[in-house]
């Protein structure tokens, strides 16, 4: 039963005994075990990535009232593998005047910046890569590599549209990184730690989504922008700049960008689960009751975690396929004039309240946090409404006709 309760340490211990039995030194054994473990984890992530292609195509088809891939294999499950074979045997064109090395580095960095996130993703209390004490910032650092990959790819293509797309995408990503970093501070304050394991454990009683719903909303919006998905996908706005930074990429290199985007979306769904929905745990204390103790099994936890991550991914897809694209000036204004100030207000609120309410009993703390968020949300909506009214009045002065139309519409 050891295996079922702590699979990674069980296998690692067995292999350590085996390898040291062969006369290898302790340090080398550690490296070899890490090597094997990491390879297994990354291969798992990549296989999941391939399946995500199928999920994405199937779900978007349903959103658009189609059936989606259904010819190859049961429910079209073999379709993504066929896609990969197609991408691999396609001719790979490097445009003239491209910077060869950087042109190849772009897609590799793009997917690597996503894969390294899996090092800290806690699949369950016993199945995880590493429990870093700066994990939350590590998430931001990996995003920095992603930004770099886009600017490298766009620059190396030697194409106006690619460069323009890269500029837009980078302006987009770095702008929305600010509210994201600010919001990442909130789980850090609530759990009093940057380690994802500690953040998960701190939510065994109550999810942070309930303590700070506004933070969750801001995180979701900035995560979508960071991913460059619709409605923030003007980096690849087909009608304006053709395909954005990956216009010159074909074959497997394009496939890597595409796979990276899907895995990134899923991984962010996973991090949303960790930071706000209790990760692999968060059953509101249910797992402490004897009858439900099977919820503590690492394999059950992993399934729960993957389900929550898939839910986050599904929400991101839902938004992607129901929203039109936003213009770049609106998008940047939305970030700097609305999202960033709001995130800072929520941060100050959380920091001060976590101090003021610390003396209260648990339910007072939870209710105080929750209602303070509701109040802030309400005030924000009221300010927006007043602003909208003012704008409409200003517009009405300009053209009486359009005002009349709006009156009728209202």
């Amino acid at each position: 039963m050891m295996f079922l309760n702590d699979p990674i340490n069980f296998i690692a211990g067995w292999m350590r005994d085996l390898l040291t039995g062969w006369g290898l030194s302790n340090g080398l054994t550690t490296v070899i075990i890490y090597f094997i473990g990491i390879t297994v984890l990354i291969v798992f992530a990549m296989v999941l990535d391939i399946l995500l292609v199928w999920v994405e195509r199937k779900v978007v088809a349903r959103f658009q009232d189609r059936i989606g891939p259904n010819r190859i294999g049961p429910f079209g499950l073999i379709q993504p593998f066929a896609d990969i074979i197609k991408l691999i045997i396609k001719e790979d064109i490097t445009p003239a005047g491209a910077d060869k090395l950087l042109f190849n580095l772009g897609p590799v960095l793009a997917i690597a910046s996503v894969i390294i996130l899996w090092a800290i993703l806690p699949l369950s209390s016993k199945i995880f890569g590493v429990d870093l004490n700066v994990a939350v910032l590590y998430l931001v650092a990996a995003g920095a590599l992603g930004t770099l990959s886009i600017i490298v790819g766009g620059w190396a293509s030697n194409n106006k549209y690619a460069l323009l797309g890269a500029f837009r995408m980078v302006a987009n990503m770095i702008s929305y990184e600010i509210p994201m970093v600010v919001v990442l501070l909130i789980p850090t304050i609530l759990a009093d730690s940057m380690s994802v394991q500690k953040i998960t454990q701190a939510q065994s009683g109550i999810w942070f989504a309930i303590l700070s719903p506004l933070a969750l909303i801001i995180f979701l919006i900035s995560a979508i922008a960071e991913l460059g998905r619709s409605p923030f996908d003007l980096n690849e706005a087909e009608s304006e700049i053709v395909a954005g930074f990956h216009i010159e990429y074909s074959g497997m290199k394009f496939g890597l960008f595409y796979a990276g985007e899907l895995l990134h979306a899923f991984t962010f769904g996973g991090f949303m689960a960790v930071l706000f929905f209790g990760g692999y745990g968060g059953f509101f204390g249910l797992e402490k009751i004897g009858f439900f103790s099977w919820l503590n099994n690492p394999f059950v936890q992993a399934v729960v975690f993957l389900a929550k991550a898939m839910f986050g991914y599904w929400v991101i897809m839902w938004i992607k396929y129901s929203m039109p694209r936003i213009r770049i000036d609106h998008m940047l204004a939305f970030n700097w004039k609305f999202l960033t100030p709001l995130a800072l207000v929520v941060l100050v609120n959380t920091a001060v309240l976590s101090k003021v309410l610390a003396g209260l009993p648990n339910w007072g703390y939870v209710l105080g946090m929750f209602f303070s968020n509701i109040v802030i949300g309400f005030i924000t909506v009221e300010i927006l409404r007043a602003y909208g009214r003012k704008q409409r009045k200003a517009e009405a002065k300009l053209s009486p006709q359009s005002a009349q139309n709006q009156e009728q519409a209202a």
Partner: protein
Amino acid sequence: MQNEWLYIGIFLVIGIIVPIVPLVFSRLVAPRKPNPIKQSTYECGIETVGDSWVQFKAQYYIFALVFLVFDVETVFLFPWALSLKQLPLFVVLEGVLFIGILVAGLVYAWRKGMLEWA
């Protein structure tokens, strides 16, 4: 501590090798018949005019600049957030003052009209 980072280091190396594998494999099996037309820069079918160095809006730079300042300041807030629990309330307010100064910069940029896409 050290072992955790060793793990991250190995992860980084393998994470870079894994995407290279399909690229190399593709290189081996995919046909390669380059010709000038195929390799020309894609621009919706017409010939490219000039080099790809068109003039970009300096506005992109302004946003990157505001981002840089904010990024540095918010990163400093992480140690502060971690020590909240051990410190008295007025120390928390020091962090709030820090955020206040940050907001002053944002307000200035806003007032100057630098956040407009003009």
